[in-house]
């Protein structure tokens, strides 16, 4: 639990990790009270890139907020915009054509693979191995090019619309996506051979940074962090949304609770995402990508609506309190990394600093998404 740090004179010293530190991958600062190499107490300091997206959500109409959502998490932006469109569709009762939902799922999963790939590269780089990052970025580039062709942007996508999509996918996209699946499967084998068995890698992660299932529950950790602690929780399975029930995929769960377990979970999730993409391309129905009947002005009825989606980092929730006007009365974003990061202060107590940085890397932090 975070609290004020009191210096014991002569015994401990304060170490600032960040706000500009390569291991935090963004502007995050952790004030650590150190006893030599060991952390006595840590306090995370947030807010360096806080932009108040929630207030912007109240000042703008629902369609105007759409681009904001992709500015939350620049690595897995589609998952967040998916949450927003689903929430507004739930609130105002807009039907989505099946083809649009399939394309949403395919693109979200591609984005998830891209996000995990970048995490993989950056994580191994944190631990001292630079080469895998280059391989990972090459594969990720393939996805980004593919998504750029249909969405028009490389990272901050604004592809989904209320009721459907901005743009239909073409044959070129389908061909490239089909070609990507065997390529990525080969790459995953390569990564496994390159990294997983490496003795330094294993020694840095095995048994390091334990996060118990009970701790996950108390802090509300979700996503790969919870699944690495033996919790079988994936919003796609537990509270199915979109067309996920029609797909056959597994949720990887590991009981080891350490940083290595979180690594395994993400690496396996990429394989599962490939399975979803493959099935999506096979089953992709024909039809329109926007509904025939759609209100010109989005004005959800009075009420309090909640929608959770599984993003690359965990359960992202969006609460819309509507007062019946074209702007939201309250627009709450529940970001997964915020909860995942909040357990760091407690989890890293008593650890050595390099182990704590390995733990931080395994949490897959994206700071703009914590600060919102």
């Amino acid at each position, binding site marked *: 639990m*975070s609290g004020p740090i009191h210096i014991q004179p002569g015994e401990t010293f304060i170490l600032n990790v960040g706000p500009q530190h390569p291991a935090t991958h963004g502007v995050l600062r952790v004030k650590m009270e150190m006893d030599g190499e060991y952390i006595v107490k840590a306090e995370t300091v947030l807010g360096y890139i806080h932009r108040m997206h929630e207030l912007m959500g109240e000042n703008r109409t629902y369609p105007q907020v759409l681009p904001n959502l992709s500015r939350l998490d620049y690595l897995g932006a589609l998952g967040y915009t998916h949450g927003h469109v689903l929430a507004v569709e739930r609130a105002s009762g807009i039907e989505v054509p099946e083809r649009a939902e399939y394309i949403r799922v395919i693109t979200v999963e591609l984005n998830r693979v891209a996000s995990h790939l970048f995490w993989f590269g950056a994580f191994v780089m944190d631990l001292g191995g630079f080469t895998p990052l280059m391989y990972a970025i090459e594969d990720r580039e393939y996805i980004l090019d593919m998504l750029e062709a249909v969405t028009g942007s490389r990272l901050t996508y604004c592809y989904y619309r209320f009721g459907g999509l901005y743009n239909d996918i073409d044959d070129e996209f389908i061909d490239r996506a089909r070609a990507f699946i065997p390529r990525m499967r080969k790459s995953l084998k390569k990564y496994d051979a390159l990294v997983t068995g490496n003795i330094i890698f294993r020694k840095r992660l095995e048994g390091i940074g334990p996060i118990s299932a009970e701790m996950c529950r108390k802090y*509300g950790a979700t996503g790969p962090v919870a699944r690495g602690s033996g919790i079988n929780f994936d919003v796609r399975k537990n509270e199915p949304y979109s067309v996920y029930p029609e797909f056959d995929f597994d949720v990887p769960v590991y009981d080891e609770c350490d940083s290595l377990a979180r690594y395994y979970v993400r690496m396996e999730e990429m394989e599962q995402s490939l399975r979803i993409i493959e099935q999506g391309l096979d089953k992709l129905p024909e039809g329109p990508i926007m509904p025939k009947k759609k209100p010109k002005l989005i004005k959800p009825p009075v009420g309090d609506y909640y929608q959770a989606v599984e993003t690359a980092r965990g359960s992202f929730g969006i609460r819309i309190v509507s007062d019946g006007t074209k702007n939201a009365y309250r627009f709450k974003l529940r970001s997964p990394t915020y909860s995942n990061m909040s357990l760091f202060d407690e989890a890293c107590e008593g650890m050595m600093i390099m182990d704590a940085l390995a733990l931080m890397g395994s949490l897959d932090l994206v700071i703009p998404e914590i600060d919102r």
Partner: protein
Amino acid sequence: MIKDTVLQSLRGLFPDPEPVVEEIVTEAAEGDEAEGEKKKPAKKKKEPRNNGVIEHDYAQYGYDIDVQLDPGELLAAVMIIDKAGFFLESVTGVDWIKEEQLEVVYDFSRYDFDTCRVVIRTRTPRAKPKVPTISKIYPGANWHERETHDFFGIKFDGHPHLVPLLLPEDADFHPLLKDFKP
């Protein structure tokens, strides 16, 4: 079903079992609303709703159980939720400026396949907003409550470290209050 058990224990918090008169429901509020009747879409919300437990349609609202209670009963309700194995999703606020009240909203969910989302709301006067902290029960609420304090100025009684989290450390404004002028 966990939903029924939790519903039962949460209803135990409200001593007199008079039917919850729901202002949101148009006029047919004579039956016991909480007995599992599906809610009609809301028409016009005029007055704040009474305290009580409402069962919601998940497909329409995205959560199953909606509880409103006084700040004094909050800890008892959260303890019930904690015993039932829920995890803390988020804590947030809503500024009901016309009613001179601030609402604090707690979201809980479950890890297993017996899904049940619970929303607990409590209201506090806008002039002197104060709610007990739940960070003793859910340490994860620490950050969420600090954030809510940043945005709404709600004091969380007993919070160990209630200083700005996302806003600058010397911030004395609360941007999500409806009368906030930047």
